[in-house]
């Protein structure tokens, strides 16, 4: 039997899909209305899954009293009510697609010291979600 714990967090942010690697016409062709230079926003949902042994003293894989402030500090505070392209340094160089947002959140959370990060799943809207799992060998994200 294996146990994992999943917690859902929320942040609201704006972004614009655009990359300096493409011309303006190509950006419009590839990203369509998501490339609108004024940006647009989403209510993002972040599902964080951790795994590990259940501490017999607490009955917990991870105490939410420690997981919640960690996620708050690493992801929610820097991302919530922000324009991701300008205000999160990592998206100045790479497109703020939710694939890249998911990957950046994974990178920020994989150092959680009290349980092993197993998966990060990001819902951009209720219709689109993106997820990244941990490679059990490298503890980094699974790469094809």
């Amino acid at each position, binding site marked *: 039997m294996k146990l994992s714990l999943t917690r859902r967090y929320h942040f609201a942010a704006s972004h614009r899909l655009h990359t300096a690697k493409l011309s303006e016409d190509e950006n419009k062709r590839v990203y369509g209305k998501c490339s609108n230079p004024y940006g647009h926003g989403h209510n993002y949902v972040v599902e964080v899954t951790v795994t590990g042994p*259940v501490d017999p003293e*607490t*009955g917990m894989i991870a105490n939410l009293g420690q997981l919640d402030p960690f996620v708050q500090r690493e992801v929610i505070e820097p991302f919530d009510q922000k324009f991701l392209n300008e205000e999160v340094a990592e998206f100045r160089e790479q497109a703020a697609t939710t694939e890249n947002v998911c990957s950046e959140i994974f990178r920020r959370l994989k150092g959680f010291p009290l349980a092993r990060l197993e998966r990060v799943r990001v819902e951009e809207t209720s219709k689109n979600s993106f997820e990244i799992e941990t490679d059990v060998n490298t503890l980094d994200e699974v790469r094809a």
Partner: protein
Amino acid sequence: MIRITRKIEFSAAHFYHNPNFSAEENRRVFGKCNNPHGHGHNYVLEVTIAGEPDPTTGMVLDLKELKDILQTEVMERMDHRHLNHEVPELAGQIPTCENIAAVIWKLLEPKIKSGKLDRVRLYESPELFVDCTADATARDGARA
């Protein structure tokens, strides 16, 4: 292989307290969940069975049978109960989502005669759930 999932809801009270901890330590580790008067949740349980459909009935298992198992094993034990005081399977354990899910797994696994228990997902709230799945190594062992 097909997976089928049945969902039930039950309401129960609990609180977190470890008799090995001092009162101060209990408050520090468990926060407001340590309130000895308890508090409650509407738990949502998703039980997933995996298997091949029977060639005659087209079913992995009869959902009526699963419904009856969930009624006997989970609802009658846990619905409108105080998990700290009234569920013998949780005696001596802190009734966290992790421990409740593990107890439910152990109760259900021997009762599933068609297909195999694949996952027990227990939501304590829409923002927090635990998944209990077969241990990959144990499953490989069984196959060999």
